[in-house]
């Protein structure tokens, strides 16, 4: 058996790249389909939403040059064309999500593996620290390639539709420009992973870079005198590419330079620093804070606090943005029959700020569902990591723990919904929009029931089939999103729409809340959660 005993050196060196590519590639493909779907939905819905030349001109006139709008979504150009509308509608949304995905994929693949102790095992084998980091970069590159391929494929096919008519070259340029956010933040994730002492710290620093980059371009887009600032922000570079609105490929130079430089630097540092160490260690010997550590419920609050605060802040910011632009958007949309029909399809009526808010609060419902899916994932991770063993070998009742844990999820959605409504009112009132506080609080709370439903189903699956819980709960969110995209393209398809919990929401404040649907969603959600708790009490604890 001499042959099989020979060490496969090339295989060993490739192992890091292959495992990274396998994990990141799967995600990349999924996210690519999501991005491509978003782009396709924006492009194909344009002719239905704004069918006449007059309406298109009105849309362009109302939005182009609107500073508040440009600050949020980037400069708006050529909104009277399907290309300009698609660039505005899907651009910033895809850029931000691509950046977040790229960042987390990179920190997980490098720093996360190091935190888990698996990196040590790799580096003890037939590879070196630097080579392993370079291999991980290759794996991330493969994941990026799949993200790009899926996004590009759907963009090109949507562009080829007779209703859209965007050329292959322009569609490819658009997909490449948006996906370059993922490439840049993968490189940033790799780099901060070399500096930070843990994956969590790396994520924090990376998120800070992303926020800073968004804010810098925000300043650049809100004042023409500051337009040069766009060159100081990676997201600004993507804006400078002007995809679909007059491509300027020269702006790819800083994008490529950043990626190459940070990847090379990361590999260089990885080869020179100790495994497990970071350039900056953030507070490894802090003062003990025991205030919440007196009970399992307190521990749950302590562990979930950062996520709850972050999600609540995200939803409050979303509500505020909705409110700030509601007045301008409402008057721009007035009389655009396609939008009015879309609102009617959701059960609303009328136009103006209230109508616009009713339309966009469905997005908050989607964010809420993602937040809830994250809660279920962290519940499962507590069990899979073995942390729960330390509680349940002590006098702690399982049902009590899971009730508190799901209760946190419930509290998060209720609080975030309420505050998002209030924030939307603050924003709207500052722009003198005619929408009352009561109506917007109702709008905020209106998006809570679908999240309660998703939480309950997540709790049920966790109670019965813990290993499937994360997949199922994110599956529901992705499914709801896909149904929404499909429903927007093919107008109305009732039985399909009924399978998405998010589409049972009435467009408050453009319509009265659908109380019956809300009650059903809550009752079903709570019943599912109760069944999950009952089952959790009776099953084995299951590791990873």
């Amino acid at each position, binding site marked *: 058996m001499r042959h099989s005993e020979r060490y496969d050196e090339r295989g060993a060196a490739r192992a890091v790249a292959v495992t990274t590519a396998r994990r990141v590639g799967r995600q990349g493909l999924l996210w690519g389909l999501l991005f491509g779907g978003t782009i396709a939905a924006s492009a194909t819905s344009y002719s239905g939403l704004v069918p006449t030349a007059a309406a298109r001109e009105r849309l362009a006139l109302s939005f182009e040059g609107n500073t508040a709008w440009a600050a949020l979504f980037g400069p708006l150009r050529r909104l009277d064309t399907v290309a300009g509308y698609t660039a505005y509608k899907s651009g910033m949304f895809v850029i931000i999500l691509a950046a977040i995905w790229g960042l987390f994929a990179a920190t997980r693949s490098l720093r996360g593996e190091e935190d888990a102790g698996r990196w040590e095992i790799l580096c003890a084998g037939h590879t070196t620290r630097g080579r392993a980091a370079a291999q991980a970069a290759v794996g991330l590159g493969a994941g990026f390639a799949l993200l790009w391929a899926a996004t590009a494929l759907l963009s090109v096919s949507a562009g080829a539709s007779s209703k859209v008519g965007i050329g292959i070259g322009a569609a490819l340029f658009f997909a490449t420009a948006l996906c370059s956010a993922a490439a840049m933040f993968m490189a940033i994730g790799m780099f901060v992973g070399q500096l930070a002492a843990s994956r969590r710290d790396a994520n924090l620093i990376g998120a800070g870079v992303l926020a800073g980059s968004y804010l810098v371009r925000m300043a650049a887009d809100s004042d023409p005198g500051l337009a040069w600032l766009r060159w100081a922000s990676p997201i600004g570079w993507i804006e400078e590419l002007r995809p679909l609105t007059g491509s300027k490929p020269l702006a790819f130079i800083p994008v490529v330079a950043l990626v190459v430089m940070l990847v090379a630097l990361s590999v260089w540092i990885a080869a020179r620093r100790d495994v497990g160490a970071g350039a900056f260690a953030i507070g490894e010997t802090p003062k003990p804070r025991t205030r919440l550590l007196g009970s399992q419920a307190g*521990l749950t609050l302590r562990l979930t606090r950062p996520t709850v605060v972050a999600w609540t802040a995200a939803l409050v910011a979303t509500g505020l943005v909705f409110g700030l632009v509601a007045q301008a958007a409402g008057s721009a949309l007035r009389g655009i029959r396609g939008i009015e029909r879309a609102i009617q399809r959701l059960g609303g009526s009328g136009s103006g700020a209230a109508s616009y808010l009713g339309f966009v609060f469905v997005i908050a419902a989607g964010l809420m569902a993602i937040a809830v899916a994250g809660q279920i994932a962290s519940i499962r991770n507590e069990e899979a990591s073995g942390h729960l063993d330390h509680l349940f070998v*002590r006098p702690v009742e399982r049902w009590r723990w899971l009730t508190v844990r799901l209760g946190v999820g419930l509290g998060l959605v209720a609080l975030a919904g309420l505050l998002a409504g209030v924030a939307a009112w603050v924003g709207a009132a500052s722009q003198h929009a005619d929408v009352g506080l009561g109506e917007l609080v109702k709008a905020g709370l209106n998006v809570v029931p679908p999240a309660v439903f998703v939480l309950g189903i997540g709790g049920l699956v966790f109670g019965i089939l813990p290993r499937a819980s994360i997949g199922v709960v994110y599956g529901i969110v992705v499914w709801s999103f896909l149904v929404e995209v499909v429903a927007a393209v093919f107008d109305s398809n009732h039985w399909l729409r009924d399978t998405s919990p998010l589409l049972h929401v009435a467009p408050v404040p453009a319509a009265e809340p659908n109380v019956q649907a809300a009650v059903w969603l809550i009752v079903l959600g709570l019943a599912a959660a109760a069944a999950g708790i009952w089952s959790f009490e009776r099953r084995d604890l299951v590791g990873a």
Partner: protein
Amino acid sequence: METAIRTENLSKTYGTTRALVSLNLEVPRGEVLGYLGPNGAGKTTTIRLLLGLVRATVGRAEIFGIDAQANPVEAHRRVAYVPGEANLWPQLTGWETLYLLGRIQGRVDTAYRDLLIERFDFDPTKKVRSYSKGNRQKLILIAGLMSRADLLLLDEPTSGLDPLMERAFRECVQEARERGQTVFLSSHILSEVEALCDRVAILRAGHLIEVGTLAEMRHLSALHVEAELDGTVPDLSNVPGLSAVEVEGNRLRCEVTGPIEPLLATLASTGVRHLVSREPSLEELFLAHYGADGRGEAGDDAA
């Protein structure tokens, strides 16, 4: 005397794998029981069943008379558990972890906790994620021992500890025994079990194959004999109970099961210059049960 642990036909099956088969075991209060078996023999499964972390397929487990499967929370008030792998919350510090686990357990001997911190030379000010494996193990040991629970369930508690710390651990178990605490010690370190345990239970492929004191086990096992004779070794074929016979000139090495007198009588005819006999060590007993490679006949990977 009160019984600390009692199991009746306790069994656990994962799919088609029988991780534990009809375990019947009693551990009286105050005893230190060593629980031995190769990897996958069902040791951890037994402990997880006793803690109610997994559900028994059949059978019953009691801790101080409390049904540990039906009423785990009440049973846990009298138990402390130390796992071999300390997966603690990485964002908490050592102090915070000790505080949390103490509060949740409901009782802590704070003076003893401080003594343990000193004895294990442990720095509790750091975050768990920055501790080495050995330091995490110390933390989880201190967290388990500080409650002075009536029953200590220890699952390979010294993995990752250096010899000095292992000695400190042995002191703790001795103290626990002196205080009347019961200790259930699952371990691969046979010298540790030999030094600490009143009785030993040996598990193989989910079956309990031997329980008893070391003296009882040795009595049933072979005695190791080495002799140097004045002349050549005589014919030993008629001596009963001999095995593993090795002859090298006038030197003899063998194992004797049962009375040693027939061997001594035969050797005396030639004249004995030097003779050493020794009882088997726990390691030899253990290997005798598992074969030289240390594995059971049908070892599985259930636990």
